[in-house]
């Protein structure tokens, strides 16, 4: 009988319920959308931050001081230590291999260019290179991943080809000789006998030291310098989680013998993509190296991600609050509107508990239906938001479905309870008289 009463009450007079229904659908849609985004946004933004470039630097452990100005190493090729190119595939075997978005080796060679008659540095690197990973797959990486702000006029050199990209400042000084399509002749500084021709395929401008240099494929630089298969430093772009207390302890434990992590702490640290734990794992597969966070990038990223994350959770909470309020307010209003129905029921002898029960059940039913519809609308909204802000749609999280329904039901209930309790005190005659 109760169910029948609820059913009848629910089906009758749909006009009165429109407001609550609309508030429920829109409210829960907003709640779903904001929660979906909030859950994903950390990941998405972290990925966005990789546009800042590499956040880890790998260098040989026992090395002489790099003579580095503006990122270009001016050391003669016979000085200092080298790393082996063949080892690089191992980077995609570490625990956090899926977070390694890209890595790029560099070998700077002091050289001379016949056309300019002067000394220029050759920066040997990968732009888009296929690395063989020990598990048999191939991984494409290079400056396209770790230095995404490098843009060329013309096109980049092909991997391993006798081509090059000239820095803007150098090209501007010798526009005729160093234009796109021209061939230049380079040799190691001091070894002018062994001259290589390279075709200029593009001109690069970064605002940094590359503008004054010539970029060549790593293999070309290796040949010219007489160090095949070698490189000096490696830039790595990894998807990391902002540092917190545990991350810092883990980092300090690397160097400070007094700080020890407990086995549980160690596991948690190792299994979190902190920059310190990824760096540690890299060092494990590349022996004889030092791995440091490029702090400028890592810290800025960490700081901003933490703040923005916090901000977005606050906004999400505000959205949830607004949604809850909308539903509660309209529930309350609807119950108030239907005072006369309550009066009639009480006049017919229904107890407060029964009347309250019917109304609550009806509101909850409405909440569940409205909430369910709202969830699907919200999922669509989240996809749209994700698409317009990040370029890829945000996938709906099914776990939110029961959460949103529960929220709708609870809030509708709370909203209805207050006016229902007041109505319980009214005498039917008063209500029916219309006061």
């Amino acid at each position, binding site marked *: 009988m109760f169910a029948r009463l609820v059913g009848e009450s629910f089906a009758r007079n749909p006009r009165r319920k429109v407001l609550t229904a609309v508030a429920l659908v*829109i409210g829960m849609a907003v709640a779903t959308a904001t929660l979906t985004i909030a859950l994903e946004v950390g990941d998405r933004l972290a990925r966005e931050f990789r546009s800042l470039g590499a956040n880890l630097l790998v260098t040989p452990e026992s090395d002489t001081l790099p003579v580095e100005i503006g990122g270009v190493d001016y050391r003669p090729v016979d000085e200092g230590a080298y790393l082996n190119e063949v080892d690089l595939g191992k980077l995609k075997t570490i625990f956090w291999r899926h977070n390694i978005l890209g890595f790029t080796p560099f070998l700077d060679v002091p050289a001379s260019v016949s056309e300019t008659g002067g000394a220029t540095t050759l920066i040997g690197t990968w732009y888009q290179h296929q690395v063989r990973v020990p598990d048999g797959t191939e991984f494409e990486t290079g400056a396209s991943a770790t230095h995404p702000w490098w843009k060329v006029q013309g096109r980049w050199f092909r991997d391993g080809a006798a081509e090059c990209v000239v820095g803007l400042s150098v090209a501007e000084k010798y526009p005729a000789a160093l234009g796109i399509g021209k061939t230049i002749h380079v040799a190691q500084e001091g070894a002018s006998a062994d001259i290589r021709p390279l075709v200029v395929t593009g001109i690069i401008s970064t605002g940094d030291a590359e503008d004054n240099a010539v970029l060549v494929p790593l293999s070309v630089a290796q040949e010219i310098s007489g160090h095949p298969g070698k490189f000096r430093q490696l830039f790595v772009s990894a998807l990391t989680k902002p540092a917190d207390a545990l991350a810092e302890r883990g980092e300090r434990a690397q160097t400070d013998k007094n700080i020890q992590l407990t086995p549980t702490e160690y596991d948690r640290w190792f299994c979190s993509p902190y920059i310190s734990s990824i760096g540690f794992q890299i060092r494990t597969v590349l022996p004889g190296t030092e791995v440091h966070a490029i702090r*400028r990038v890592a810290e800025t990223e960490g700081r901003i991600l933490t703040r923005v994350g916090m901000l977005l959770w606050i906004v999400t909470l505000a959205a949830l609050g607004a949604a809850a309020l909308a539903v509660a307010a309209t529930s309350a209003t609807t119950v108030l509107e239907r005072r006369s129905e309550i009066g009639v029921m009480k006049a017919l002898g229904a107890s407060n508990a029964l009347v309250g029960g019917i109304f609550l059940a009806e509101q909850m039913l409405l909440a569940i239906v409205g909430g369910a519809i709202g969830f699907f609308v919200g999922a669509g909204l989240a996809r749209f938001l994700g698409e317009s802000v990040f370029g890829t749609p945000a996938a709906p999280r099914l776990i939110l479905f029961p959460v949103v329904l529960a929220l709708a039901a609870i809030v509708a209930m709370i909203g209805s309870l207050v006016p229902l309790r007041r109505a319980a005190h009214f005498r039917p005659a008063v209500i029916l008289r219309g006061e």
Partner: protein
Amino acid sequence: MFWRMVFQLLRGSRGRLAVAILAIVSGAAVISALLNLDLGVQNKLTQQFRTLGANIVISPASGAPAQISAAEVPSLMPERDVLEALRKLPSAQVTAAAPYLYIVARAQNHPVVVAGTWLDQAQKLDATWKLEGNWVASRADDARCLVGRNVVRRLHLAVGNPLEVHYLDRSAQCNIAGIVDAGGAEDNQVFASLRAVQSLANLPGQIGLAQVSVTGTARVVAEYSARLAAALPQSQVRPIRQVAEAEGALLGRIRLLIVSMVLLILILTALCVLGTMAALAMERRKDVGLMKSLGGSISRIVGIFLAEVGVLGAAGGLVGTILGAALSYWMGLRVFGTAISPRWEVFPATIALMIVVTLTGALPLRMLGNTKPAEILRGE
């Protein structure tokens, strides 16, 4: 009588109005808090990005800004011209600026990059430097220098030790004030006062490079860059693309995200207020019928109710906006560590919005214009 009626209406319907007031106040609070936040966030985030370092670099027009071997003359530009141009920039946006002169000197027979610069700006240009020891406060201090940690390690030195560097046939000495841990190329360099390095290299009044850190959007940076370029026709002025581009794109995304969520909340809040207002108005139907029967025209009648909800909207909006200002202040502290001060424009904007929304909710009563009083009074 008009205002007496409005007052009595407000006083008499307290219970029904409670929900409406709650909706208005919290709606206004949320909206004004988010509006304040939105305006403040971009500022704060832009400041955060300054830890990426300089975003404009000034270099000589002709080629490499560095000296490759001791024998070659580096590409240089006059210090005075650059400093003049920098001085003309409005200082509010400039976080830091410093000239550089790089030479490759020798210390303990190792080649070492020595950078002459304004040591007082070092910390501001790169906020991620960690320092063991002390910063050098004055750019005129020739006696002390900051040394990168790799240099210190290689040369087996420590804070307080003297460091002697040789260039061609000259040498100079400085005291190590602090060891720099930059997590970058600076770990391999020595930083001394510009004067000292200029005199060591015998290049008085010359610098190889200048870096500027400017706060603001990508457009602001581009503007400054253009202004500097115009003032320095003999030099190249370029935004550092790594920083400028990434920052621009990121800020854009974050802003878009926040704005879209704010919009959603705005719509929701407006809906909530509208709904409760509309429900309230519907409750007044009978009163409208009665007043029509007394000879009231629909415009006068609706005017009374519009005044009622208008007062609600204004009062609730005011209280809510104040709450919202407090809320955004607290949020700024919590998220950024510094308070976001409320913008005065948010007050009238939010209150106006609330009034408009509440008035819109009462307007359905206007539709009773042509309904006969008998019909209305007949009851539901």
